[in-house]
């Protein structure tokens, strides 16, 4: 027996609101994980909850012919995140400066406190330097795993705009990481004064 699509569930939930709970069960983990990587576990709890409450209240505006609600939910989450973009940028800059990620430090799970990448501060600085629109596109691709057309749907922009933003964002990231790598060859210090200087260089060009 085929499981109902998100669109079908949402259509039914207009008359039987409890059915929206299945949409929550399908997508909460993904939305939470994305928000957690963006802002940290505590914020993610609240913002993920807000995402689904907002979605529930707006479900009558959802086109039931769209089978997957994932882009729609990420769109709501992205709108909510816009309230927090300054905070996110501050966190990224702090990470780049100090080598300590405030998002991971806030985690209550030990394994999360270890970043998977030694290049964390470098990446944080590069991310902080990206214009907001480019950062959204890049992170929706890298962290949410959305396709280009889904990203276009989430952000309400054209597919061509997604392509161009993604291309620019990747180029800036490459340049930042490359510059960092070259600098690293000349320095034995992975973190510290060199990191702090790079952080300032990145943030000075941020939007």
């Amino acid at each position, binding site marked *: 027996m085929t499981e109902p699509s998100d669109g079908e569930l949402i*259509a039914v939930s*207009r*008359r039987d*609101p*409890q059915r*929206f*709970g299945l949409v*929550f069960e399908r997508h*909460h*983990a993904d939305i*939470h*994980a994305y928000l*957690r*990587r963006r802002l940290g*576990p505590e914020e*993610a*709890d609240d913002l*993920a*909850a*807000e995402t*689904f*409450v907002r979605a*529930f*209240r707006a479900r*009558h*505006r*959802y*086109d*039931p*012919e769209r089978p997957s609600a994932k882009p729609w939910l990420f769109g709501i989450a992205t709108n909510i995140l816009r309230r927090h973009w300054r905070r996110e940028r501050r966190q990224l800059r702090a990470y780049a400066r100090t080598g300590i*990620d405030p*998002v*991971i430090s806030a985690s209550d*799970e030990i*394994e*999360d406190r*270890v*970043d*998977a*990448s030694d*290049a*964390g501060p470098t*990446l*944080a600085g590069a*991310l902080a330097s990206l214009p907001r629109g480019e950062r959204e596109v*890049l*992170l929706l*691709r*890298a*962290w949410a795993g959305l396709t280009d057309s889904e990203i276009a749907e989430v952000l309400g922009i054209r597919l061509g705009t997604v392509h161009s933003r993604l291309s620019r964002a*990747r180029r800036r*990231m*490459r340049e930042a*990481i490359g510059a960092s790598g070259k600098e690293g060859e000349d320095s034995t210090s992975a973190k510290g004064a060199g990191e702090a200087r790079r952080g300032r260089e990145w943030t000075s060009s941020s939007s």
Partner: protein
Amino acid sequence: MDELEQLSGFRGHVSPPDAARVNKARAALDRAIEQERTRRPLASLPGGFTKGRLPLAVGAAVVACGAAAAVVVPSLRDSTAGAPSVRDSAPAAPSLRDSSDSGSAGASGTERIVYGEGLVAFPQETASNVVSRADRVVLVTAAAATEIGDNAPSSQSAAGDGLINRKVTFRVDRTLWQRAGAKALTGRFNAVETGWVLNNFRRSRFVLRGSPWIQVGSQYVMPVAFDDGAWQPLMPLAVFPYASGAVSPANTQDTPLAQRLSGKSLGEVAVVFADAASSR
């Protein structure tokens, strides 16, 4: 390793949220669901239509309908072309053809319509249903309408949510059927009709699903009954727009009676109800 691969490991090791975190978010959603369920006025009030009087039904909504947009709004259709993300779940309603639109050019043509759901305490789906309770079936013209006001509690009004009903004056143009011994009906009568729903200060027409929007200047075939000392519309699901010499049900009207009367002239409508009465 390219930049996307590097990013995928950035802040990696994100484990799924534990049960406590999931439950917290789920509790917030459940509260929203419960809030909607308990505030759904027309569906939750068994008296909404139990006496078969639309004014009573609307009156009930008035009492409880503070958060009307979120509450009595199981479906919402945007009549604006090019808004594919706003869709109704009703399968046989590809476009908005509410009678209100035919009689209201201009700005109202792009006004959103919010459909409310309500319990009906007795059937209104056939001519036989109508003649079993109505005193008359008349052709009326909606001659005038005035807003009754925002009936939401002040806290919800402040938040831009509420329901605005209308007092509509109907002019009786013609009687199509009458019960034997029915009280005379001429001139005009007033009724409370749905008006608009406010949601975040945005105004949308509010219509009970299965009934037409009452547009000033338009004509309707309407069952009425004399009750509590006054004539009142009866059976909102059995009120049909009449235009260009034929009954033209609104797009949400799909009862057997709506199908039977669709396209009929007034003479033919009269025969339908007369036949139904004689066969009882």
